């Protein structure tokens, strides 16, 4: 039986918790239940008061095993296993092993009464600590753990193998000393049965999966536990036996190379390459501690890449730039809050022409047959010649335009604050249909599968066919300002409700949801099997496209409303902290950042190894990618 701390959400009723003892209940007229302190697969662990000591408060831990198996043979095996734990504990006397006081059975339930440990388990300590635990602290516990394992391994007539060393089975008591809890699967050393698979994935050595349990298994699991404590990387979330791929110091550079060597030896794949016994491991730990000493901590200063990046060129406009540029045939087109659309030479930033509207421009221009299409806060869609910057035609809506135009099948699709998605024929400049979205449409539509996908500020997301008929609708809890992207039959977008959604592009069923720390207006970018997007919590997230599982996240110093752009193996994204970040997209590691004087809300475009973007500091920048 295995216990873990109660982290189940309230609504998740496990059958065990449903039948939990209530506080105030009394067992065998002696143990007064106070509260649940842990829940395992087969019952709970309670804190109880021993009523045989009326004048003092003697607390005990009562471990319960509810035998719910319907099969009699199964029932019998369960009871035997539980008794084995009691029997092992009863014979052991060591300061790091809880004492057993009592063992009894009532109907379907068996109970172990154990010493109550005032303290916290190591897993919670790791989780609750900001940053890394100190090397000295972990080293002290490691040496104590070696002591108790050494005691178990020296047990006569047969050594006892703990078999389940992991942070959640280690309690740190109020004196800061370790206590091993949960001897549910500990057993005297014997040749294992084939196919036995006991232990906790991530901490158990390869041979334990083959049913072999020897002292080497505990050495490995202790190594895994120390690795987890020093790196905060839970091995249950990593591929098994992959410690060699993520050495401790690569994650936590404060750890000494001496300690790393000890851990690596304990984690050797082949048992014969680990320490020959736990005493040797303790010796090595002591040696490492002597060498490093408490005072001679290795000071490592992380050297961030110097922000000595020189722009290829910059161009100053007369107001904030919040939008995203378009690059076409060597010309960069970008809108600005000085009401102008600028055309700049992409090679040197030389001004070509500008076109004035009567409102700020946040939309990303689109190009079709030598005409540039873009919306403005003057409520109009403007179409100008890409060569001359002269007006070709305009189209009026009844609200500001924040949604960028999308051109497909000789139609331009875009939303407006008049709550309508507009479909306009590019040849006739006439409206073909209008789709009433019920609220402002600021999201940029995406066209795929002969459908137009877009979100609205009331949280609705629509798929509309080319006739303007709704095919399906999805409702998020808050506004959808983010622009969708469609790939492999899925449509991805974020919402102000703080979720990255992946829907089936054909019918709108939710395939997965990914919780962001905060709301998002950022539009996802896709590459290989990764989705990358920013959020208001300041993170840039990378999520696996097929499973919705997080791959990495990168913290910027402020909200990320910019949408990432991917180029080669890098992702480029701006932040309200004023920086443009370049990250390695598979790992999220920062390659460089470039600081502007004001927030960056627009998205970069990258072409021919140059990244182009605008900043609220009124400049357009071109940097070497």
């Amino acid at each position: 039986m295995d216990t873990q701390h109660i982290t189940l959400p309230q609504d998740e009723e496990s059958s065990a918790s449903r039948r939990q003892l209530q506080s105030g209940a009394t067992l065998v007229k002696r143990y007064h239940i106070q509260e649940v302190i842990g829940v395992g697969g087969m019952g709970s662990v309670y804190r109880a008061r021993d009523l045989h000591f009326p004048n003092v408060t003697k607390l005990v831990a009562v471990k319960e095993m509810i035998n719910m198996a319907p099969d009699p043979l199964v029932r019998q095996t369960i009871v035997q296993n539980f008794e084995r734990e009691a029997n092992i504990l009863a014979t052991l006397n060591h300061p790091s092993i809880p004492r057993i006081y009592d063992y009894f059975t009532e109907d379907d339930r068996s109970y172990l009464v154990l010493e109550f440990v005032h303290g916290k388990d190591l897993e919670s300590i790791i989780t609750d600590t900001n940053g890394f635990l100190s090397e000295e602290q972990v080293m002290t516990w490691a040496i104590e753990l070696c002591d108790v394992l050494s005691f178990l391994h020296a047990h006569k007539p047969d050594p006892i193998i703990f078999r389940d060393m992991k942070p959640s089975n280690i309690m740190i008591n109020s004196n800061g000393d370790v206590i091993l809890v949960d001897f549910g699967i500990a057993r005297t050393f014997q040749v294992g049965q084939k196919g036995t698979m006991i232990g906790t994935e991530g901490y158990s050595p390869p041979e334990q999966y083959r049913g072999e349990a020897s002292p080497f298994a505990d050495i490995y699991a202790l190594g895994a536990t120390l690795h987890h404590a020093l790196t905060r990387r839970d091995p249950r979330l990593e591929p098994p036996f992959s410690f060699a791929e993520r050495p401790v110091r690569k994650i936590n550079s404060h750890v000494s190379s001496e300690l790393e060597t000890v851990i690596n030896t304990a984690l050797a794949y082949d048992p014969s390459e680990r320490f020959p016994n736990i005493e040797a491991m303790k010796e090595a730990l002591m040696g490492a501690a002597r060498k490093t000493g408490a005072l001679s901590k290795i000071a490592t200063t992380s050297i961030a890449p110097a922000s000595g990046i020189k722009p290829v060129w910059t161009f100053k406009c007369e107001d904030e730039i919040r939008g995203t540029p378009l690059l076409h045939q060597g010309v960069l087109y970008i809108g600005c809050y000085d009401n102008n659309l600028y055309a700049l030479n992409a090679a040197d930033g030389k001004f070509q022409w500008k076109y004035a509207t009567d409102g700020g421009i946040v939309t990303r221009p689109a190009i079709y047959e030598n005409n540039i299409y873009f919306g403005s806060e003057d409520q109009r869609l403007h179409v100008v010649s890409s060569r001359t910057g002269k007006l070709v035609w305009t189209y009026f809506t009844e609200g500001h335009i924040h949604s960028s135009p999308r051109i497909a099948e000789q139609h331009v699709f875009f939303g407006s604050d008049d709550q309508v998605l507009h479909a306009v024929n590019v040849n006739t400049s006439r409206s073909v249909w209008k789709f009433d979205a019920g609220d402002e449409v600021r999201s940029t539509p995406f066209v795929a599968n002969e459908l137009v996908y877009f979100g609205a500020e009331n949280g609705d997301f629509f798929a509309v066919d080319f006739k303007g008929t709704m095919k399906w609708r999805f409702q998020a809890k808050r506004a959808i300002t983010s622009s969708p992207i469609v790939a492999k039959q899925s449509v991805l977008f974020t919402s102000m409700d703080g979720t990255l959604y992946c829907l089936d592009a054909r019918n709108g069923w939710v395939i997965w949801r990914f919780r962001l720390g905060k709301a998002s207006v950022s539009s996802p970018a896709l590459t290989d099997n990764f989705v990358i997007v920013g959020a208001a919590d300041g993170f840039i997230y990378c999520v696996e496209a097929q499973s919705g599982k997080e791959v990495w996240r990168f913290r910027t110093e402020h909200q990320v409303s910019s949408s990432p752009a991917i180029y080669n193996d890098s992702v480029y994204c701006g932040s309200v902290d004023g920086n443009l970040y370049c990250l390695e997209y598979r790992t999220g590691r920062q390659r460089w950042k470039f600081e502007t004087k004001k927030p960056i809300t627009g998205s970069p475009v990258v072409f021919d190894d140059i990244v182009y973007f605008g900043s609220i500091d009124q400049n357009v920048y071109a940097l070497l990618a």
Partner: protein
Amino acid sequence: MLDFFQKLFRGEDKTATERATTAPLTDQQIQSIIHGQSIQFEMQQLIAATGQSVGKQREHNEDSLLSITTTLAGKAANIPFGLYMVADGMGGHQFGEIASNAAVRVVAGQIMRKFHPYLFSIPTQQPEESLQEIMENAIKEAHRAVQKDAPGSGTTITAALVLGQQVTIGHVGDSRAYALYPPGRVEQITHDHSLVKRLEELGHLNKEEAATFPHRNVLIRALGQGDTLDADVFTIPFPHNGALMLCSDGLWGVVADHDLLRSFTEAPNLQRACQSMVAAANTAGGPDNISVVLVQMIG
């Protein structure tokens, strides 16, 4: 007018006589009928078949499987809906069949409960959970159930939830999902959670060593084992112009990929393909229980 009706019905008459050929039909005839039929489905739909055998060397069947095929009727379209599963109770453990059976029942029960409103009543709301959350929670629930009903045992589970054009896979252990693309391509969709696979990835074993590794049956992740269970859950497009196949290691461990594909392409229908695959595993010695599910999207 009469001409018009005759013209209209002539085609129908002709197919009716063609189909009236008396049994037994040759495989080519069946093939042509199947072929003829498939064009008529302008609406996309799923068809599925299953096959199972104890094998030649085991006394008990510790595998469990499930196959449910229907459509979700909707205003705009009928969405194909299917739920398929294979579970292989852990060999060497005493309660393998209890585990695999409980896993399939609980996972299927949990998932069907979520779809009950869409299948059997008029839904008023969107589902609270995503498809992947539904799958993941169902597997977690099954994990708890197996721990309760048969502690110490374990089972694999490979479940495929088909909705429209997408398949959401939930997977733990070494049963497998494949995409079969005739004439010559077989793609393994799932990733085995087995010791041998892991050792191979780490470079401790090469392909030949892996094939003869004595502990090929040992899983590093199984439903019912460990306090936390991390199932692989992901969504992929349904393999079009081919088939989705789920099977236990009693099949993939003894019959080569290309032979499985041949069984599929040469059989007149899915049911016969399943039978032929099971027969191939038994011919190869049938060392373990054999389970297979084949699913096709037609139309």
